[in-house]
C-alpha cells in the first residue's frame, strides 16, 4: 500500500463530486456579496435560507469526518515506529473508530435534515492538513487544527439545535463534540511528548498549526464576533489542552483571516472601478 497518499488520490464512489477550492475563492459573486446583508452570521432560525444553509454545512461536516478518518488512518500506516510510537498509532486507531462513528452519525443527521450523500460538492482542503510528512506536524494539522475546528463547528451546531429545539441535532452534536475534545487532547499531549527534547521542532509544528488554523478560519467563517457563523469555543478547547494564550492567539489568527478576506474584496472592488 502506498504511503503518504496525496489529496488528489482520495478514493470516493460515484456519488461524490470534488469542488475546487480556487473556484470558491475566485467566484466573481464574492465581491458583489460582500456588500449585502444576508441576515445573521450565526446559525439561527430567523436567518434567511437557514434550512439549506444548515444542510449544506452538515454535508461539509460529513465529508470532513471522512477526511479526518482518512487523516488519522494514514498516520497509523505512513510512519514506522521510530517516527511515530506504537502508543500514538493506537490513539490514532481509536480516533479512526470515533471518526467512523461520526461519519455514520453525520449520514443520519443529513438524512434527518433532508439531504443525500454527495448532494453537495466536497472540498478536500481539510485532508490537505493531514499530508505533512512529519508526524508531529501532521498531529498539529489534524488533531489540533482540524479537530479543533470540529470542536468549534459542533459546538455551534449544538447551539443551533438547542435554539430550534431539534432534539436529534442537539443530542448528536453533543456526543460528537465530546469525542473531538479527546482527539484534540491527544494531539496536545503527543505534541508535548514527541517534542519534549526538541523545542525547535515543537515551534515549527506550532507554526504549521497557525498556518492551518488561518486557512481553516476561512476568511471570517470562524471567530469570536457576531459576524462569524462558527464561534471559537474556548471552554472545550481548554478541556482539550489549549492554554488561554493559545485561544487568544487563535482568535487573533481568525481576525487576521477575516481582515485578509476583507482586503481581498476591497482590492477586487478597486480593480473594478
Amino acid at each position: 500500500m502506498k504511503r503518504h497518499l496525496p489529496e488528489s488520490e482520495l478514493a470516493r464512489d460515484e456519488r461524490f463530486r470534488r469542488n475546487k477550492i480556487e473556484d470558491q475563492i475566485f467566484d466573481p459573486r464574492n465581491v458583489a456579496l460582500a456588500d449585502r446583508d444576508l441576515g445573521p452570521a450565526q446559525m439561527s432560525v430567523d436567518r434567511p435560507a437557514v434550512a439549506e444553509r444548515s444542510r449544506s454545512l452538515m454535508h461539509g461536516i460529513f465529508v470532513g469526518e471522512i477526511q479526518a478518518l482518512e487523516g488519522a488512518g494514514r498516520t497509523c500506516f505512513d510512519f514506522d515506529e521510530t517516527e511515530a510510537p506504537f502508543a500514538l498509532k493506537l490513539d490514532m486507531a481509536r480516533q479512526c473508530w470515533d471518526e467512523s462513528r461520526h461519519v455514520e452519525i453525520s449520514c443520519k443527521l443529513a438524512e434527518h435534515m433532508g439531504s443525500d450523500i454527495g448532494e453537495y460538492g466536497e472540498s478536500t482542503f481539510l485532508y490537505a492538513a493531514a499530508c505533512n510528512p512529519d508526524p508531529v506536524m501532521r498531529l498539529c494539522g489534524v488533531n489540533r487544527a482540524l479537530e479543533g475546528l470540529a470542536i468549534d463547528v459542533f459546538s455551534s451546531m449544538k447551539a443551533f439545535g438547542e435554539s430550534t429545539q431539534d432534539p436529534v441535532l442537539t443530542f448528536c452534536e453533543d456526543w460528537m463534540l465530546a469525542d473531538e475534545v479527546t482527539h484534540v487532547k491527544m494531539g496536545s499531549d503527543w505534541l508535548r511528548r514527541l517534542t519534549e527534547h526538541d523545542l525547535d521542532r515543537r515551534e515549527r509544528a506550532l507554526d504549521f498549526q497557525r498556518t492551518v488554523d488561518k486557512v481553516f478560519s476561512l476568511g471570517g467563517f470562524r471567530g469570536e464576533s457576531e459576524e462569524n457563523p462558527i464561534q471559537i469555543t474556548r471552554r472545550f478547547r481548554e478541556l482539550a489542552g489549549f492554554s488561554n494564550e493559545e485561544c487568544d492567539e487563535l482568535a487573533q489568527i481568525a481576525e487576521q483571516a477575516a481582515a485578509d478576506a476583507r482586503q481581498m474584496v476591497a482590492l477586487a472592488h478597486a480593480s473594478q472601478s
Partner: protein
Amino acid sequence: MGSLTVTPDPFDLVAFDAGVVRALLEELAGTLGMPTDVDIALTIDEAVPHPILGTMADIVDGKIDLWCTGGCFEARDRTRAFSERHARVEISGMLLRARDRLSGGFEDAPSDADLHPGERAAWDAYTAGRLVDLGHRVHHQKRIYDFRLQHGFTDAGDAAFERLWTIGSTTWPAIQEVCVATGAAGRPKPKLPGDLLRRGRH
C-alpha cells in the same frame, strides 16, 4: 398571452442562459394553466449563491412578480452551473403560489415580504405537495425539516405538515389555522424584514 420577461439578460456572474430560463418559464406557465392575459416577470439575483435559497411570488399592479436568488437554479455540486431540475421545481413553485394569489383562495394573503415565517413554511409545504402531484422530484424529508424549523419538532407539527403535503387544495385562512394549531403563529415575528435577501440591505 401576456408578456414573459427574465432579468438579467444576459447573466454575468453565473453560467445561466436567460433564453433557457425564459423557455422554462413559458413552458411551465402553460403547463400550470396560468392566465394568458397576465404579464409575468421573473428576476433572478445572480449574485446570491447556493445555499442561500429564497423565492418570492407576488401580484403587483395586476402582474405576476417572481423573484429568486441565483442559488435556487444553481447545481448543488458545481459552483455557478445551471441546474434545470432545480430551476423547474423553483419556477413551478413560484407560479403555483402566484396562481393561488390570483384565484386560489389566497387573495387575502399578505405579500411575501409580510408573511410570518411559519405562514410561509406552511404555504411552501402545500406547494411542495402539489409539485409532487405534478411529477417533480421533491425531497419529502427536506421539506419537512424546513417546516419543523418554523413549526417545531413535534408530532402535531409533523401531522400538520402531512395534511398540507397531501391536501391538494386549501386556502389562506386554512394556512393560518395550521399556524395557530402548531403554535407557529404565537412565535414572535423576526426583526429582520421578510424580503431581506431581495433588498440586500437591512
